[in-house]
């Protein structure tokens, strides 16, 4: 058991970090929308499998892309890639572009990989990078902005929320790497095929182009978009459990990985020996599922 990144992975992450920091600084021209797709291709990021790398490495790239607030469709690319375990774009496989600056689009016919652990893990990896960037910027601000003659980070009213956020980010990082490893294992094993694919569905759109020079607002939009994309809490928590079942150390149940919410809830129950809930669909929207115990 070794839950640390190996030297190659660390090097990849660092190289990606440096490259992205150079190409996508915060003071960039936010209107320009140059996603440097060609350069990504040259770097080999679009076909990591050809370099003998797997989803863990892709997740690391996604994390760094999120950190750089990268404007291109890499997430959609990673989520939609063909894979040995049967995740393909059916039909003609075209992805039509809905926005020339953010070509994510929808799939014409066939099915998408939207409902897969790969997609959710990829979203989470990207969101992790965004969260880390937000934390870093917050910490930087707390160190440099002064009030009453001191940096505001001196005050616990500022430093404690940042510390709590740090634990959020670190705990998320653990879940992301774990999920990434599970997906990579599954794909390497080449299993998971033969599942009933989900119905055709539009791929979620990337967030709209950010307003010029407003990284803070951009991050907020990003967060909102990620929340929407993930769907409501109950559904998402069910998904994570799907990923969990790929963990060879855990109690294993074969699940309908691609299926929508109701079977996911049942799967969650199976995994922990609960009786399935009544077939009431999970309620949606803000405030409809308050946390118990708060």
């Amino acid at each position, binding site marked *: *058991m070794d839950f640390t*990144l190996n030297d190659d992975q660390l090097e990849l992450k660092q190289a990606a970090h440096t490259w992205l920091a150079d190409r996508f600084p915060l003071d960039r021209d936010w209107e320009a929308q140059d996603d440097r797709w060609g350069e990504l291709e040259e770097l080999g990021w679009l076909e990591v499998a050809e370099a003998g790398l797997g989803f863990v490495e892709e997740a690391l790239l996604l994390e760094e892309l999120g950190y750089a607030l990268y404007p291109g469709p890499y997430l959609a690319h990673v989520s939609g890639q063909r894979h040995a375990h049967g995740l393909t774009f059916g039909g003609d496989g075209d992805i039509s572009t809905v926005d020339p600056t953010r070509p994510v689009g929808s799939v014409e016919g066939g099915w998408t990989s939207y409902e897969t652990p790969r997609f959710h893990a990829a979203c989470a990896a990207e969101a992790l990078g965004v969260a880390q960037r937000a934390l870093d910027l917050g910490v930087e601000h707390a160190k440099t902005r002064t009030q009453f003659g001191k940096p505001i980070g001196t005050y616990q009213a500022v430093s404690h929320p940042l510390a709590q956020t740090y634990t959020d980010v670190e705990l998320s990082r653990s879940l992301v790497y774990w999920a990434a490893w599970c997906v990579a294992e599954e794909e390497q094993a080449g299993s998971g095929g033969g599942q009933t694919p989900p119905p055709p569905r539009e791929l979620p759109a990337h967030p709209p182009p950010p307003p010029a020079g407003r990284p803070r607002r951009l991050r907020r939009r990003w967060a909102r978009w990620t929340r929407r994309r993930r769907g409501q809490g109950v559904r998402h928590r069910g998904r994570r459990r799907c990923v969990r079942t790929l963990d060879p150390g855990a109690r294993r149940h074969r699940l309908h990985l691609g299926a929508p919410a109701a079977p996911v809830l049942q799967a969650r129950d199976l995994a922990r020996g609960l009786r399935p809930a009544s077939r009431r669909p999970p309620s949606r929207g803000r405030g409809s599922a308050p946390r118990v115990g708060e």
Partner: protein
Amino acid sequence: VDLRDTPEEAQFRSELRAWIEANLPDEKRGGRGGAQRFEDPFLREWSRRLYEAGYAGLTWPKEYGGTGAPYSFQAILYEELAAAQAPPHVGVIGLSMAGPTIIAHGTEEQKARYLQPLLAAEEIWCQGFSEPDAGSDLAAARTRAERRGDVYVVNGQKVWSSFAHIADFCILVTQSDPDAPRYRNLTYLLVDMHAPGVEVRPLRQITGEAEFNEIFFADVEVPVENRLDDEGNGWQVAMTTLLHERATLGFALTATLDGLLGRLLQDSGSPEDPRLREAIAAEWIELQALRYTSYRALGTYERTGIPGPEGSGVKLRWSEANQRLTKLARELRGPEGILDDGWWNHQQLRSRGNTIEAGTSEVLRNIIAERILGLPRSR
């Protein structure tokens, strides 16, 4: 990243499972913890068995009675013990705090004298750090140790000392030089709890039990050879203790939480309410996050041998998770939650102290802010 057991780990795990099956009677599983567990003589017997099988001090050097196993084995041990709902080794403070500190700072004589009886549960340790006016601010400790010839004469009071009522020795932080600058004024002593002048008074807790205590020292003579490291170096030694407390704690805590969640699912009667189901799923996810964060910290620990400050984050989030989980369990049980045998009642009441003991949540946030995020000191 590879979460599979290596062949060595897999073998260790299966041997351990078989050993637990053979050595832990069913009726001794699933105890509720707290002070009550020390009333059962089986606990010492169980601790001795753990030692004889090499599971106590698993990662300690062989020359001090340990097994010299890698840290990942320790994680497996915690996981398997929790899965079997096994009681802990009786020497909790000794194993996680006193022992590692003595290994790091002790003389050969001290290591030879204290480590083996600690592992074998022949001698129990307690911790004398907090004082009525110096808890989180340890450098302000006022328990005085005055050098007189070959002894230190100790006077003062310690508080919130778990297991002091059954302890044979105490790791004691004392003020040895009131004129020395802060952090250079402390001396770390190993004190015989049976020495004349030591008095232990139990503190009744919300659970109704007295798991921790006040300790009073009145002209207690401590031989100079019981000093750990140099005079005035007590702060550094104490920091070693606290780092180890939090580092090795992570897996134990996560394993305990895993056990609690398992029991909650067993007891919950399959709630239909989506809010409750979501709350259970949320706690399960938090548990996995804590678990894998501990695994990541383990990697650092294995490389450097020194636990990183990441342990502070795990302790912080665990204490909050444990409080939520025990509260949720009570809610799931409805009125029965209060009227049943008191198992969950005890767990919930006991969990209230989690955000205070072993570093309050506020102190842990300070540590994260200053040592990890690099923010300026608040004091």
